[in-house]
């Protein structure tokens, strides 16, 4: 019994081992190329599940079926308008022809280094063939300013003229390509070289664009000076408004005061005229008496305690001082 049991046990293990060597599992994420003594046999297996192969002589080579990531290291590239920028790109690719991939590339690591070479040069070509703004802006840029002006950003009017400062805005807002078009061109160019590796490039994206540090510093400086310009504009606007208000006030004051003066002079003049008319009416009836009357009034109201007068006896009041008191003839 134990001997028989042992034979069965060993036999089944041998059978299982044999079976396992002619079965292979293909995961959903994988695709397989069967090679027979190194030579690819049949079509690549892309459907997942349990599959058969000949043991020993056939070998299953597994490849990734999913979309994979390629991440480039940032490159310092000058743009067409001679601005040095760091460009960081990323791409998605997949193995579309595992057989070709096996023959030309072999594994993912090699594929990545192939992609490095191809994509880097394509990116370099396109970046240095375009202006920086083309890489930054994309479709619809022409609308950006318009919408901005419609919404009315407070600082907007002060942002307008800005041409020759470092990294400054180009005078024209016209966009000939834009980022999307450029990346599409990059994908097209890179894709031209990739089919021979069994690779399909799904997408290539510019992840980051950054000025090199020295330029970055200048950009900061420009931004600061720009803000300072806006700030001083606000200040001078404030001062201007203040001056305008004060000027208006001065004008208003002058108007009010002069109008009041005119009115009062008019009133006074009218009153004076009226008074003159009244006097003339009254006094004109007997001019001689008026003269006498006013003179007498003047004498009566004369008031200067320090004044001295020298009169002769010729004066009417004193006519009796010298005489005898007789009525005398003049």
């Amino acid at each position: 019994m134990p001997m028989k049991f042992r034979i069965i046990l060993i036999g089944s293990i041998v059978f299982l081992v044999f079976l396992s060597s002619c079965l292979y599992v293909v995961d959903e994420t994988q695709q397989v190329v069967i090679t027979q003594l190194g030579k690819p046999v049949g079509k690549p297996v892309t459907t997942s599940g349990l599959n058969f192969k000949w043991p020993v002589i056939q070998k299953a080579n597994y490849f990734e079926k999913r979309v994979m990531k390629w991440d480039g290291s940032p490159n310092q590239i000058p743009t067409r308008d001679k601005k040095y920028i760091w460009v960081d790109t990323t791409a998605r690719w997949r193995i579309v022809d595992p057989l070709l991939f096996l023959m030309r590339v072999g594994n993912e690591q090699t594929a990545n280094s192939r992609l490095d070479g191809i994509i880097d040069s394509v990116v370099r070509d396109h970046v240095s063939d375009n202006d920086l703004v083309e890489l930054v802006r994309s479709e619809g840029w022409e609308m950006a300013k318009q919408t901005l002006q419609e919404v009315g950003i407070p600082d907007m009017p002060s942002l307008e003229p800005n041409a020759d400062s470092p990294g400054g805005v180009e005078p024209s807002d016209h966009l000939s390509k834009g980022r999307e078009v450029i990346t599409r061109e990059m994908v097209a160019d890179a894709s031209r070289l990739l089919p021979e590796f069994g690779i399909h490039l799904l997408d290539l994206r510019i992840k980051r664009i950054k000025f090199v540090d020295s330029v970055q510093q200048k950009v900061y400086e420009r931004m600061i000076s720009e803000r300072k310009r806006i700030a001083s504009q606000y200040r001078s606007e404030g001062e201007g408004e203040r001056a305008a208000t004060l000027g208006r006030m001065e004008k208003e004051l002058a108007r009010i005061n002069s109008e009041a003066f005119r009115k009062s002079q008019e009133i006074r003049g009218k009153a004076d005229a009226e008074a003159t008319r009244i006097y003339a009416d009254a006094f004109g009836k007997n001019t001689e008496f008026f003269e006498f009357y006013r003179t007498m009034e003047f004498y009566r109201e004369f008031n200067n305690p320090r004044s001295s007068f020298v009169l002769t006896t010729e004066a009417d009041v004193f006519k009796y001082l010298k005489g005898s008191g007789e009525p005398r003839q003049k």
Partner: protein
Amino acid sequence: MDWERPPHRGQGPGGVPELEEFIRQLKLRYKIPSMPKGPFWLLGPLFALALVAFNCFYTVQPQETAVVQRFGAFIFTASPGWHLKLPFGIDTVTKVATGRALQREYGYRTVRADIKSQFSEKGYEEQSAMLSGDLNVVNLHWAVQYMIENPQDYLFQVKQVEDTLDDISESVMRRIVGNRYADEVLTIGRAAVAQLARDEMQTILNSYKTGLKIITVKLQNVNPPDPVKAAFNEVNEARQEKERMINEAQQVYNQKIPKAMGEARQLVTQAEGYGLERINRSQGDASRFSEIREAYSKAPDVTRRRMYLESFGTFLERVDRLIVIDEQQKNLLPFLDVGRGAQSGISSGRADVPIPPQAPKSPGQEGR
């Protein structure tokens, strides 16, 4: 005897004699006793059975969805609960947290999530700095909330799904910011940028079949870069300053104008008062004169004389000195030194003092 083995790895039939040999050697070395008598031999199979049993079921948590593969091929997804499967790697179960809202952060990291969460920005400047369309630099912190909508796609379509999401998120955000003025992004554009980013990311994720669904894209801090911040604040200050200056000027205006208007009214009213007084006085004077004239006309000579003398009397009362000299006396000088020195009224040593010989007929003042 390794060189006898086939060149490829994995067990071939060539391994069998070795295995037998191996087992025999093991037995020799550890002196494994032969099977003990009785029911003890059942222990092994029972143990194996238990192992099989434990390998035959799995539980799925409420927030999870299980993806079941048989020999690598996808067969179905299982909802939360207790399920059976085939053991020993025939069926493999991958649980994916489909119910959870997941979050990726860009430009910052939540250090400690709490009621008052702490965030760190250090070391993520590279991620947050981006160029705006007017070639300014803006620091943008944002978070993407997403969930795994399709666990099958999530597992089988893209290799590094989270990395892919990161790449898409960054490139999309940079494209959108690059298509706008820095001022728009910094102020009013936030909501629009977030919405646009969400839609665009979703489109790209769908094209890759990542199985992810973006719930929201939230912009957190949107700032100018640190070296520039002070200048941005200065603009705000200047704006305040402008308002202040305008208000101050308006204040002065409001202080002075109403006062001036009041003063103007005062001036006019004063003039009116003056006018009334003038007219009333003149009327008074006129009527007084008329009365006197009427009385005078009844006895002109006597009245005239009386008025003259009365007036002269009053005049004398108000005068300091009055010197009366003889009409023949021509030299006045000796008299001037009488009493005190020279007084006002006679300033020079002129002999003739212009006393009108007919005082009563001297011209009076003009009608005032």
